[in-house]
């Protein structure tokens, strides 16, 4: 067990709150979280400070409220249709903030979910670029990396799927106009691109993690914002919602160990 400065709050719970904060102030947009921790974060945000967030049922509908993570499809209440075809209307209108996962992410915010090694004959085939190229140049995009190490945080990704700052700038106004890689949350900390050259910065480390831990696990030179900054504590209400309402079965601990 890691020695937390705050007794009792687990690493997974810090990660959930860090993900939830990505949607603070988002308004009436679709939150599309990938992974258990981001899904809990989006639901927590909707139940607290971002009540207008729009969540899908993972199939073809928008759902009312923020049900528990383990809720069965029959238990969900749906408010409107959202077919895969109409998702593109949302993506290209910009009314969305997605949190995707990344097999690799790099210094300027490029993400890779396509392939490791050369694309024409990959060393490891991954799922494919999916919607990452279009998402990243059309609406706010954040990333969740549950296993922060030098293989996931790399100097340069092998296949640019989600587009980072330098690539967007080089591609011109068509790419930069709505490009907004907002935040990266890993099991070690929270990162942004609020630097003069739009490269990755450590915004806060999760309690129990040192700056050295983060630097050692990162395969590129990271800007350190405020080396004392720690990811904020969940409020008592947030902790209660996570533990008693959204995830009583503690699925969160399967994605991030404490």
């Amino acid at each position, binding site marked *: 067990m890691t020695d937390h400065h705050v007794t009792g709050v687990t690493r997974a719970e810090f990660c959930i709150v860090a993900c939830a904060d990505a949607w603070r102030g988002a308004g009436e947009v679709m939150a599309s979280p990938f992974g258990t921790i981001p899904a809990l974060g989006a639901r927590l945000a909707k139940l607290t400070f971002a009540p207008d967030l729009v969540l899908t049922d993972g199939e073809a509908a928008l759902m009312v409220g923020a049900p528990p993570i383990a809720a069965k499809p029959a238990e969900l209440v749906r408010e409107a249709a959202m077919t895969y075809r109409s998702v593109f209307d949302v993506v290209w209108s910009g009314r969305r903030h997605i949190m995707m996962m990344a097999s690799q992410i790099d210094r300027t915010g490029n993400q890779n979910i396509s392939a490791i090694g050369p*694309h024409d004959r990959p060393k490891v085939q991954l799922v494919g670029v999916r919607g990452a190229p279009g998402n990243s140049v059309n609406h706010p995009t954040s990333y969740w990396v549950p296993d922060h190490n030098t293989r996931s945080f790399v100097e340069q990704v092998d296949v640019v799927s989600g587009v980072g700052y330098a690539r967007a700038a080089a591609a011109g106004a*068509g790419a930069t106009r709505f490009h907004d890689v907002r935040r990266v949350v890993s099991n070690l900390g929270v990162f942004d691109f609020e630097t003069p050259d739009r490269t990755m910065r450590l915004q806060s480390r999760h309690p129990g993690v040192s700056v050295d831990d983060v630097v050692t696990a990162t395969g590129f030179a990271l800007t350190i914002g405020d080396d004392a900054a720690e990811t904020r504590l969940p409020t008592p209400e947030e902790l209660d919602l996570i533990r008693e309402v959204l995830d009583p079965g503690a699925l969160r601990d399967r994605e991030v160990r404490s």
Partner: protein
Amino acid sequence: MMADKRTTVDNIVGELRSGMTIGIGGWGSRRKPMAVVRAICRSDLTDLTVVAYGGPDVGLLCATGKVRKVVCGFVTLDSIALDPHWRAARQHGRVEVMEVDEGMFFLGLQAAAWRVPFLPTRAGLGSDVLSINPDLRLVRSPYGAGSPYAGDPADADVELVAMPALRLDAAIVHTNRADAAGNGQVLSPDPFFDPLFLGAAERRFITTERIVADGTLADEAHPLSTVPIHRMLTDGVAETPGGAHFTANPPDYGRDEAFQKEYAAAAAAPAEWDAFAGRYVLVGEDEYQARIRERQAR
């Protein structure tokens, strides 16, 4: 009297030729026309270009050596993140890929269905989709600063990706119900991109769980919105119960997760694939369905 478009899975596959570009409807491991996929696997067709929101259709066709090239944004089994047969084909360099963003893919089908050579989009800009597909081109907006149609100044002369039309020689989709005239009904909430696959294709086929009398698809329980495919999009309709197995086809049946696991595990070694293929791929559809019923009775 409307035309009677009833046909069979074997007749559909009989209309396909080696080297063709074939669109396959559904999404991932959901509502895939698997009876036709299985029939292609058993045929002597080869050198196909497969255009799909990829699932086990792509994996099976790769595993049986039918595919030269795949056009896709992903290949997934949903409950299993990646189809291992696809992974093996890619890592051994046995298949070419045109990998594009999911939305670019949609626009490619839409362009073909609308008979325009391309549609513009931001999707792809700045990404390696443009470098791994070196023949993709950009297009500059003709509406510059002086034009009465110039919208936001930020978009004056903007360069966008020109997603080319994905023209298909043939397309096959699977629906819950259809009629002999070629109207297709989807009883789960999402038609995916099936009408567009048909619209983008030269020869268009529906396979279905059940063919019902013309004009009876919609009723009180099933509004017209459950019939997204009209007969102008269809050349042939084949009834093939269980034809989407083992992919999800609610409300008729869910995904056969146990079977899908066995399918995925068969990628581990050639001997395991041979055993799986001998039992479930290289047999006729009736025999296949009998073996599935036998499994499910166990």
